[in-house]
């Protein structure tokens, strides 16, 4: 048989039907649901008198609107509360394999709870009305975000209409330097290929540097595949994947576990498989990264400077850079390390897992946030992550450093709840998007790793985590 890429294996094992023009009907194994992109889908289903095809494919939680403090007060914003209550009542009516409502101990960001409960398994197709569904590709799932009409379509038919993507391999070989993390790798990748570099592709991340990453790190990389324009990111199954999934609540057990693992072991690109595009990076050359603009591709190493738009030849790009610098309140050629910050956000589906919190705590231990930093928000990805962090005493380290330790949720990654930047405030954030207004109207976001975010909190400006003694 012809050598296949991982993507091709996942694709061909899910095709139910193909139209003449190649549009395929793809079967969906796991449907993750949250409160923001599902109400119109449930309503559409009801209006059409349709029933969900397979309720036990649904795993649901409330994450975008939920507050991260004073849970005893409930959700104060009536519009947010209505959206969360709508999810409650929809799931009550329709059912689900699992529902982790607001305040449940296993509630959390949908892309954190799927894997940690073993609801995301290799070989699955995973969808969610959320672009960061690409996260789950770290488990060799074909996972991507969908719109609300597609949420309704999956509920009604268990399938999705799809065109096959092209395949891209991003190979990162070599050893990452100390203090350089998965976040730096993916920001460096986006800096290289651009925010539209992966459009139309499913990206497989490979090479020794990717294999050396934990599952948490691989999730961080796949999470931001969408920031490179690719709906789906993928990493092949290896021992770490299998070890991570063992004994998770929804992982297969007993004889089924053995059968599943045997199958999962086939989920890698075959030797000699051909990709439509290949990009190579040298891990040793990657430094801690900081974005300076309003698109994730506007990124520089910590020892770099804000670029000068006047040197850019492409007029559309130049104008984009000028607009970004104006929005960000930055001058060309400013050293990244000279940029002072007002707030820090450690959290989001990109960087809120236990490893991320450990990395931030490692930097914060025995130190104190700088006086000019008004708020350092640490928001765990889920109730389980929170519990684990507290068991390790990370919360105490954060609090001693003057950081705030909060309840789980999406929080200031997109600022749908009360956690947000005020106009003009500058934030070192471990989230995934530095778009205008993303963390609050007029807010200025710089994307960094958890260790770099903690270092910025301590220094009051961007600092090279590798230089912290």
């Amino acid at each position: 048989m012809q050598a296949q890429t991982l993507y091709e294996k996942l694709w061909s094992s899910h095709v139910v039907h193909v139209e003449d023009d190649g549009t395929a009907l793809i079967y969906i194994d796991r449907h993750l649901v949250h409160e923001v992109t599902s109400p119109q889908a449930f309503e559409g289903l009801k209006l059409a008198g349709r029933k969900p095809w397979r309720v036990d494919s649904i795993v649901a939680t409330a994450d975008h609107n939920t507050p991260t403090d004073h849970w005893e007060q409930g959700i104060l914003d009536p519009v947010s509360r209505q959206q969360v209550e709508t999810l409650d009542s929809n799931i009550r009516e329709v059912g689900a394999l699992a529902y982790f409502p607001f305040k449940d101990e296993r509630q959390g960001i949908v892309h954190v709870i799927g894997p940690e409960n073993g609801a995301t398994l290799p070989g699955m197709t995973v969808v969610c009305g959320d672009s960061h569904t690409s996260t789950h590709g770290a488990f060799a799932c074909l996972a991507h975000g969908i719109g609300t009409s597609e949420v309704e379509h999956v509920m009604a038919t268990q399938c999705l209409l799809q065109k096959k993507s092209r395949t891209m391999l991003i190979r990162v070989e070599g050893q990452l330097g100390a203090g350089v993390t998965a976040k730096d790798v993916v920001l460096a990748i986006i800096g290289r290929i651009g925010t539209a570099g992966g459009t139309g592709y499913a990206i497989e991340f490979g090479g020794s540097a990717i294999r050396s990453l934990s599952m948490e790190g691989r999730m961080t990389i796949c999470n931001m595949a969408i920031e490179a324009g690719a709906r789906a990111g993928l990493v092949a199954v290896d021992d770490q994947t299998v070890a991570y999934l063992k004994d998770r609540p929804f992982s297969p057990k007993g004889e089924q576990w053995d059968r599943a693992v045997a199958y999962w072991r086939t989920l890698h690109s075959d030797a000699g498989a051909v990709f439509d595009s290949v990009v190579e990076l040298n891990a040793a050359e990657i430094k801690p990264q900081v974005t300076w603009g309003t698109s994730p591709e506007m990124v520089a190493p910590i020892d770099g400077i804000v670029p000068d738009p006047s040197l850019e030849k492409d007029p559309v790009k130049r104008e984009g850079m000028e607009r970004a610098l104006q929005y960000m309140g930055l001058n060309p050629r400013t050293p990244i390390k000279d940029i002072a910050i007002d707030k820090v956000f450690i959290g989001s589906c990109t960087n809120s897992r236990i490893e991320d919190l450990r990395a931030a705590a490692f930097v914060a231990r025995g130190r104190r946030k700088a006086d000019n930093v008004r708020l350092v928000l640490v928001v765990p990805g889920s109730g389980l992550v929170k519990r684990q962090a507290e068991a390790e005493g990370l919360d105490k380290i954060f609090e001693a450093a003057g950081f705030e330790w909060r309840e789980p949720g999406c929080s200031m990654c997109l600022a749908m709840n009360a956690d947000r930047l005020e106009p003009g405030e500058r934030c070192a954030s471990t989230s995934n998007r530095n778009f205008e207004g993303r963390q609050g109207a007029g807010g200025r976001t710089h994307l960094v790793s958890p260790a770099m975010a903690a270092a910025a909190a301590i220094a009051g400006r961007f600092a090279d985590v590798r230089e912290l003694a």
Partner: protein
Amino acid sequence: MNPFRKLDGLVAPMDRANVDTDAIIPKQFLKSIKRSGFGPNLFDEWRYLDVGQPGQDNTHRPRNPDFVLNQPRYQGAQILLTRDNFGCGSSREHAPWALEDFGFRVLIGPSFADIFFNNCFKNGLLPIKLDADQVEWLFTQCLGTEGYRLSVDLEAQTITRPDGTVIPFNVDPFRRECLLNGWDDIGLTLRHADKIREYEARRRIEQPWLFA
């Protein structure tokens, strides 16, 4: 879904690359549980000088006179010229809902983000990809000609310029059929219900752990 066949419409230029869906419709408006009413908040942060809130009356909010869609010459535009990677970022379908509710039916640009592109077709909105130089030319014409209009014919897959010259474009045949007829995807898919059941039955045997 409303079918789309032909449109002769006024063109507005959105002259910036990487316009993300957060810009198209900011997060606070995503708290709505409805599919309609997003038009007044399309490009909210660029269009108004204050910060908008859901449920607010937008008629008296201060408008940004520099924002392209606030300029008198583009009032009533139904076709939006866009730059590279339009619709990137969040998968929120509220973005095409807002564009459609505002009055746009056609987007013309060199490239669109995948999820956004897909979402447009589910809402009677036609995104057309053209070569970068053709888009550049349309921008020049549109910016230089007050009342610049284009005529779009999905069946023929053509854009006709005011001087009568024709630009051909391509849309996937399946999507084109759905849009021309305003078909409901779900209804189409359910014609294959037997195939879905067969596939499912086979998978239950091959990979029973997926159905636990």
